[in-house]
């Protein structure tokens, strides 16, 4: 790999050489990243000056940073000059009906129980169904607006709600936070923005589900959610269908801000393309997610079900700044075939009487490597802070691996900490027992895995929980491969 300084030099040369950005064909900019590309992205989105400047500062800082190597995942070096950082919405492959869609994808949809209309939308079939779902989205948006709730794309928010964006953007994940967050800050394409005004309880689950088809969100998403005092919002991210993407790197940033007595619940089902059975292809999911409990009695709760991506590097965290604030992290991460997951959370206790709960369930199968990495920090002055952590690993077969790296730092003598960990293996005894009751080894494995994940699934909104269960069994390829 080229060392950073050489790379910088090269890029400096490039900037000089290709300093006439205006000549670029607007829809297909060349591979690579420099200040002009950052400016171009900003201009394409018709962003105000402050936004462009923020991106540039992030970019300049990114140049000084090194890609982190502390995580427990292995992958060949990424050539950041070999990535296209802005592409106009990809031309959809002409698909006239579901018959033309890859049978493998279709059978996956069927297994997941996605309704036909939804299958068509996901496969990009140009039928009226697409229009239908757009109009549904509009209906929701009107209803939300009546309550003063803003829910729109990030780009729209920059243009229409600049005060809110300027106030909170980067306030939880600063652009210099880490290598991938800095990269995202420089080149983010789009994402979601939600604001819930004081005292308003958002009456429905906000979801990218009914918005994503309007805008083809790219690989650098940016999401910002703000709950004003006394507000409540539950946000669902993700799509339960596989998103086949030729892009390798997915570096998103999510920031949550909860003010006094506010609560944000953020649920994710991540099912990006995991690569094939030999470990070829798949998404590198390098994501920074963090919430700040800024106000007293505020609460932020992360729930994630991570079944996709070839590599997951993700630590949804909570900064518990307000007194009596509460942070929660519930996670199921699955690594099958050659997937690698390094995921966990950080709970930073700053305010008094802050509480946090961590429940992490890691499942490894095939040649998968699953790592839990968690940090619990009780700062001085965070009197009576409490944390409960539980991280369990489940191994299926004998070629997979599970790792646990808990890191507990306590600077406050009144703190109460609990940490529990377990590693178990689906045993022949368990499978045999189920078989003697008439249950096949495949169904038994499915049952055991779902039992293992139950604590986390219970935290998901109802429909999501059902889908998560199905997704786990599909992701483990449980049909006819076990036993």
């Amino acid at each position, binding site marked *: 790999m080229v060392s950073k300084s050489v790379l910088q030099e090269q890029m400096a040369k490039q900037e000089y050489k290709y300093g006439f950005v205006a000549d670029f064909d607007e829809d297909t900019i060349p591979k690579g990243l420099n200040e002009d590309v950052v400016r171009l992205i900003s201009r394409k989105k018709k962003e105000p000056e402050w936004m462009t400047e923020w991106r540039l500062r992030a970019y300049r800082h990114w140049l000084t940073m090194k890609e982190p190597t502390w995580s427990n995942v292995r992958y060949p070096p990424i050539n950041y000059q070999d990535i296209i950082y802005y592409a106009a919405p990809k031309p959809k492959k002409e698909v006239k009906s579901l018959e033309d869609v890859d049978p493998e994808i279709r059978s996956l949809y069927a297994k997941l129980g996605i309704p036909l209309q939804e299958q068509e939308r996901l496969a990009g079939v140009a039928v009226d169904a697409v229009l239908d779902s757009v109009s549904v989205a509009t209906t929701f948006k009107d209803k939300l607006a009546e309550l003063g709730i803003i829910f729109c794309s990030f780009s729209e928010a920059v243009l229409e709600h600049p005060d809110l964006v300027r106030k909170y953007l980067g306030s939880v994940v600063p652009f210099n936070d880490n290598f991938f967050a800095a990269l995202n800050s420089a080149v983010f394409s789009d994402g979601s923005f939600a604001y819930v005004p004081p005292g308003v309880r958002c009456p429905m689950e906000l979801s990218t589900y009914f918005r994503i088809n309007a805008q083809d969100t790219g690989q650098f998403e940016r999401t910002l959610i703000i709950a004003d005092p006394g507000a409540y919002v539950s946000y669902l991210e993700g799509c339960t269908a596989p998103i086949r993407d030729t892009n390798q790197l997915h570096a998103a940033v999510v920031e949550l801000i909860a003010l006094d007595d506010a609560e944000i619940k953020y649920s994710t089902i991540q099912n990006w393309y995991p690569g094939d059975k030999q470990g070829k292809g798949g998404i590198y999911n390098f994501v920074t997610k963090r919430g700040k409990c800024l106000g007293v009695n505020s609460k932020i709760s992360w729930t994630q079900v991570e079944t996709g991506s070839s590599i997951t590097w993700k630590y949804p965290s909570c900064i518990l700044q307000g007194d009596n604030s509460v942070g929660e992290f519930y996670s199921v991460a699955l690594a099958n075939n050659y997937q690698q997951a390094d995921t966990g959370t950080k709970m930073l206790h700053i305010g008094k009487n802050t509480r946090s709960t961590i429940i992490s369930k890691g499942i490894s199968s095939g040649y998968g490597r699953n790592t839990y990495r968690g940090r619990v920090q009780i700062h001085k002055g965070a009197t009576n802070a409490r944390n409960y952590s539980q991280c369990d690993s489940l191994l299926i077969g004998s070629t997979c691996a599970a790792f646990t790296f808990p890191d507990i730092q306590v600077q406050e003598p009144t703190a109460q900490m609990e940490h529990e960990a377990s590693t178990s293996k689906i*045993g*022949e*005894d*368990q499978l*045999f*027992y*189920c*078989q*003697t*009751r*008439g*249950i*096949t*080894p495949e*169904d038994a494995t499915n*049952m*055991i895995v*779902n*039992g*293992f*994940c*139950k*604590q986390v699934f219970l935290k998901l909104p109802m429909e999501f929980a059902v889908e998560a269960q199905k997704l786990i069994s599909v992701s483990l390829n449980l049909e006819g491969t076990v036993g």
Partner: protein
Amino acid sequence: MLEIKNLQVKVAGKEILKGIDLSIGSGEVHAVMGPNGSGKTTLAQVLAGRLAYEVTGGTARFQGKDLLAMKPEDRAREGVFMAFQYPVEIPGVSNAYFLKAALNAIRKYRGLEEIDAMDFMGLVQDKAKLLGLDETFMKRGLNEGFSGGEKKKNEVFQMAVLEPKFCILDETDSGLDIDALRLVANGVNTMRGPNRAMLVVTHYQRLLDYVIPDFVHVLVDGRIVKSGDADLARNLEKHGYGWIVEEAPKPQPARA
């Protein structure tokens, strides 16, 4: 119902069963007794289909079908049930969920409709009472944190719900106090009937005081060395296994 002929089984390369002949008719309760290490549990497990047990010779036919050729789950669906000596725990999977899945897998195999939640709850409530299990029991994880006695009761409870044709009870009395033993025995006895057979594997006479067998077989060193009626079991309780071991034909010493 079950015809076992000259059954020979190896476990981890070691010969454990050295030619078992056993014929069990419909409506009969057979007890297999024997000292530790005689092969009792092996016999139970091999009939249920444990993979690690290698059948090296002989046959076992269940209702005319080759039992040993069937996968364990198919044996269960055909009507074979084993109550385990050491039932496993499956955390997070409730007893109700597990049992319903089992019942439906069996029903489906037999071409019956899946049972719905209401009918299922009605069915299990009656059977649970029989074994003195309370309502919260169904919601707990399968054997999760159960005492030894609770686990054994759960085995017999499952048996009562699944209504198998042939029941294998592997050391079901071990670890039970006298009250639990009575409940379990009562559960087993209510299941006796002309269309069902049972094989009770036990080290002690205890359970057989309550579940009176029609036939008793004594297993020593992988062979049935003596068969009789319930009196044989009482004799064993009084005199131990020693006299039978003495009487048993010794294997010929290998010639040098």
